[in-house]
């Protein structure tokens, strides 16, 4: 397994196995900050968008960030322009900008909303694949979509027929049996699984003792979640045959290799990009070096 050879992720050819985690890299904003250097030195083998919802969302009130010993908590709250403006403004801009395939991450608060989102992107050639963020409640059932096998089955059964594009289901780690949810997704036609999303966490304002985050609770990411991510990727990889996009605290080639050895086909870098926008390129480089010297035999 020569890691720097192109990798196939459910039909999408990637130059290497390192992509970005949704919501942790905004190519359009980065273009403003870094100019043409961004496209020339683009660090990821595919670009995954921040979550797009049907209606525009302003997101949670600030403060939205809390720093941890080895990570952070965010309560961003999925701010985005909504489907319509994403299609008319961002999609054309991204198409001109990106040197790599585009994966659009979408989320709906009901199966119907997800279906509308999937249909809207189904015909757009610029979009290589869709990632379904199911870390939210289904307002119709009150259940967490991504935590219940039955919810995920029902969702996939509805949206799978709407597009020929790969559907990557992004799972929440805040579930009793993540492997069972992954199996349900596979059975209902998911093309790949991605995990982990952030782990629920909270912080108090040291001065007032009140919750610090505007959203009260938030999601933990970064190295602090790496060991939990490894366990979840491992157990999902035992449960499904479709490819896995593994993420959670990746900072180095070694971290990426561990996730690949635990069963991922591709890895995604999230929080580490905040510390260094070029982190993805570093991870890919280090991984190539390690792969050259190691026997990646743990994959089963």
């Amino acid at each position, binding site marked *: 397994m020569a890691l720097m050879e192109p990798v196939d992720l459910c039909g999408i050819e990637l130059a290497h196995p390192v992509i970005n985690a949704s919501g942790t890299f905004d190519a359009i904003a980065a273009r*403003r*900050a870094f100019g043409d250097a961004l496209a020339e030195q683009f660090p990821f083998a595919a670009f995954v968008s921040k979550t797009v919802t049907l209606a525009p969302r302003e997101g949670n009130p600030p403060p*939205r*960030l809390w720093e941890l010993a080895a990570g952070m908590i965010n309560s961003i709250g999925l701010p985005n322009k909504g489907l319509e403006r994403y299609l008319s403004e961002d999609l054309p801009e991204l198409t001109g900008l990106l040197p790599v395939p585009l994966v659009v991450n979408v989320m709906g608060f009901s199966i119907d909303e997800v279906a509308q989102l999937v249909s809207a992107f189904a015909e757009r050639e610029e979009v290589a694949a869709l990632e379904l963020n199911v870390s939210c409640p289904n307002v119709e059932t009150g259940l967490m979509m991504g935590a219940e096998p039955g919810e995920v089955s029902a969702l996939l059964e509805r949206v799978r027929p709407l597009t020929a594009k790969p559907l990557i289901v992004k799972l929440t780690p805040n579930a009793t049996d993540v492997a069972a949810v992954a199996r349900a997704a596979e059975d209902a036609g998911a093309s790949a699984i991605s995990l982990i999303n952030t782990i629920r966490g909270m912080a108090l304002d040291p001065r007032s003792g009140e919750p610090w985050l*505007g959203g009260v609770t938030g999601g933990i990411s970064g190295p602090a979640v790496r060991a939990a991510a490894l366990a979840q990727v491992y157990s999902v990889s035992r449960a499904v045959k479709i490819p896995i996009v593994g993420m959670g605290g990746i900072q180095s080639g070694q971290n990426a290799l561990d996730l690949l050895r635990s069963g991922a086909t591709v890895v995604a870098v999230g929080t580490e990009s*905040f510390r260094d926008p070029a982190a993805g390129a570093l991870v890919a480089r280090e991984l190539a070096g390690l792969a050259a010297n190691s026997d990646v035999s743990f994959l089963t």
Partner: protein
Amino acid sequence: MSERTVAPFGRRAARVLDRRRCGSYVVLRCADPEGPRPQGGQFYMLTAAERWGGGAGERPFLPRAFSVLRARTGPGGTELEFLLEDVGPGTKRLCELGPGDELLLLGPLGAGFEPPAAGRRPLLVGGGVGIAPLAIWQDELGAATPALLGFRDAARAKGAALLHAAVVATDDGSIGHHGLVTELLEAELDSSPAAVVYTCGPPPMLEAVRALCAERSTEAQLALESGMACGFGACFGCVVPTRTGLVRLCIEGPVIDASRLETAIVAGAGH
């Protein structure tokens, strides 16, 4: 609007050339040979190359945002100065650095100050460590640009030496005007109303300046602060409220025109 100076992509190493105390503050000078010359009001994300993370509290983990205090371009490329106040684990670690130590930096980032329209007199109003972006801006506008600076006490007021001919106010009256810098600003605007105010400082001061300028219909550009994880628009963590909704300060700011703001108070910012 002037084009912003874009940053090289990715974090780069920068050698610390000099560290000097300036009252309660520390001025760090470092070499950024390949980096561009930043604009006044732009900022950098800084990390110490070693021992970032660790210590009892085990923070910092994320880089920290700092306005550039001053920039020079010489034969060896760009040199940058930063003004630091030790208020927590990140600034503490950075304040420990000395000549030869390595910083990791990303920048220049964000949108800086806009030059005054013809016929408008620039006026700098700063508070505490917030005087940093005013120094480089005074370098660009000219040493004669008046600066009104407020500090908590005399040790902090030593920072006033970083600008030319600054008028100083202190909260405790230990030096300069005994009172708030907004009192100096009020007098100044009374005598010469056709000003553009460039301001940076702690949130309550910024808000007082904003309110005063709004009352007088005086143009103002505010360099705000907000907790930042990335500095380049990736995390959506640094949002501040504007009349048109929450915007990412690292991309839309840190300098924001007062006309866009209902308040300069940002939840979670300041210390």
